[in-house]
């Protein structure tokens, strides 16, 4: 009896609190900004999209726009409903980074019909009309990372051939495919570079530790350098190399994660190709406003991806973190 009563009281209280919170959220949305906008992204699991979100929140104040940030939690159907909701709310433009190339296409077509301009950021949307596409080139980042690694290997020893290991991201993702394509291009361009081994480590540090241990077991001192599809896996490789008796092995990652860049101060042969989500987001908002105001815009805006090494690491960390 007592239990029932307290449970009822608990439910009633939570209902009151819940209503209050909801009301708070609703009133917050009302303001008199010049343009209303929306951003839909795959998942805030990735630091890249968190940085995108932070910049978006700053931009709302700087550019006098209102905005909603939709996190699809890696679910394609969630992202489709996110975009539909934004269209229903009649926003002035939507910036979308799709989970898969085709997954969000129906919702983008829906936006096309409702005359809501779609700004495609980062990953590509296929099969529907977008106003413009803003991205850094993942294939080119792969080429740059591989070439940087080769440059380091040449700096350490003069050999006729250099053996590179590749730590790959989750198979089937466009990012992993593109970054692998970049490596292939660099291999074709440089005869002195050969691929010693290539293995999937799921973009994860702990997977990369295990895979790297097995690489060290099977290849040992034949290893000249490591190219990782992201910085988290580069951290894993660093961990294993540090504990082994191998020395001076260059490791190059991609993304520009602060924890990876922080290791550069002790390691002159480490590098990353940094993505700049902040720049991508500002370009998206600025180009979006131009589209709404009826100005001509380009079909594609490439966001630069600078190479970070020991030399510019501190400057990079100060600017973005």
């Amino acid at each position: 009896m007592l239990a029932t009563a307290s449970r009822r009281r608990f439910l009633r209280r939570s209902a009151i609190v819940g209503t209050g919170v909801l009301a708070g959220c609703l009133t917050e949305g009302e303001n008199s900004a010049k343009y209303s906008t929306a951003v839909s992204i795959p998942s805030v699991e990735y630091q890249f999209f968190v940085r995108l979100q932070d910049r978006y929140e700053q931009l709302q104040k700087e550019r006098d726009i209102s905005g909603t940030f939709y996190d699809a939690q890696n679910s394609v159907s969630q992202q489709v409903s996110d975009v539909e909701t934004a269209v229903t709310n009649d926003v002035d433009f939507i910036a979308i980074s799709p989970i898969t190339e085709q997954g969000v296409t129906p919702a983008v077509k829906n936006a096309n019909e409702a005359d809501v301009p779609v700004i495609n950021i980062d990953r590509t949307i296929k099969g529907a009309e977008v106003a413009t596409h803003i991205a850094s080139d993942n294939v080119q980042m792969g080429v740059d990372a591989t070439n940087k690694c080769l440059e380091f290997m040449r700096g350490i020893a003069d050999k006729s051939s250099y053996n590179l290991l590749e730590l790959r991201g989750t198979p089937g993702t466009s990012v992993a495919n593109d970054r692998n394509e970049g490596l292939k291009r660099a291999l074709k361009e440089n005869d002195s570079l050969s691929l010693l081994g290539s293995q999937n480590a799921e973009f994860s540090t702990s997977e990369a530790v295990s895979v790297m241990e097995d690489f060290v077991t099977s290849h040992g001192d034949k290893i000249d350098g490591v190219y990782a599809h992201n910085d988290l896996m580069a951290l894993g490789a660093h961990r294993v190399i540090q504990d082994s008796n191998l020395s001076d092995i260059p490791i190059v990652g991609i993304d520009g994660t602060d924890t990876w860049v922080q290791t550069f101060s002790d390691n002159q042969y480490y590098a990353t190709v940094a993505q700049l989500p902040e720049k991508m987001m500002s370009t998206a908002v600025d180009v979006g406003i131009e589209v709404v105001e009826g100005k001509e815009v380009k079909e594609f805006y490439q966001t630069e991806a600078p190479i970070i090494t020991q030399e510019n690491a501190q400057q990079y960390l100060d600017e973005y973190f």
Partner: protein
Amino acid sequence: MFSELKVDVRPAIESVGFQKIGQYGPIFGLIGLYALFSAFADQFLTYGNQLNILRQISLIGILAVASTFPILCAEIDLSIAQMMELTGVLIAGLATGSYVAQTVSVPVAVLAGLATAVFLGGVSGFITSRFEVPSFMTTLAMLFLADGLSLTISGNRPIRGLPEALTALGGSEIFGIPSIALVFLTLLAVSQLILSYTRFGLYIYAIGGNRESAELVGINVKRVRMGVLVLSASFTVLAAIVAMGRIGSVDPNMGTGLLLPPIAAVILGGANLFGGSGNMIGTLVGVLILGVLANGLNLLGIGPDGQLVAQGIVLLVAVLANVSRR
């Protein structure tokens, strides 16, 4: 006491004894893998590589031990990988002073992590046992909750610069043996002792075998069902700490990909997915099968696509062997 019972708890009592530990199917599978890889990969049987295998299986192993308790009790805990993320982020954040201005001493940080795990495990356990919500659902909810909390707390940034007191448990060696493996094997042994020699262990098998009968003989079913989920949640603290030693940092997404392998290992080792039978030695064998397979394929230089195919085939054969044994 149990001789007076009318209900049939014999299967339960049998699984408790060490006699039933020789569940030969999975062990033969493991021996087969060893023979295969020794023949084709030169470095496979070296001392160094065997130590590597021990290092590589230990994290999944600890999580598998944690999963074994709920599975034996006919429950399931889907939240352990994300609970590991959450406790890891909490402990590392407190110990490095990432969230509060002042650093907290390592024991206090670990206790805070443990308290969180016990509390959240308790919430899952309470909702499961009190309101008859399947643990599949409560722990799935807890998975999202823990994942979200760890992302929020950490701001989705990995944490480096961990104090050595935290990384020593997973990253050092004692007499040439990786400490992470010693932690895993100790936990495994203690867990088997709990299952074999305590009343709590006996009750787990009884409830997993037949919950109604267990209730009829006067076992406090609610408490035990809640207990297994609290226990599995608490073990994730250990998993988080050894993970820190292994990867040298804490990543709020470090549980990604660790949801199913521990459960697969438990079932591979011969435990019944629907509760009542299985033991820790089986879990060890299951973890070894998964670990040896990945290590051997890596040494053979099999690419990612081929590895997935090979893993699929081995899992199918192993599960088939399991079923035909019953």
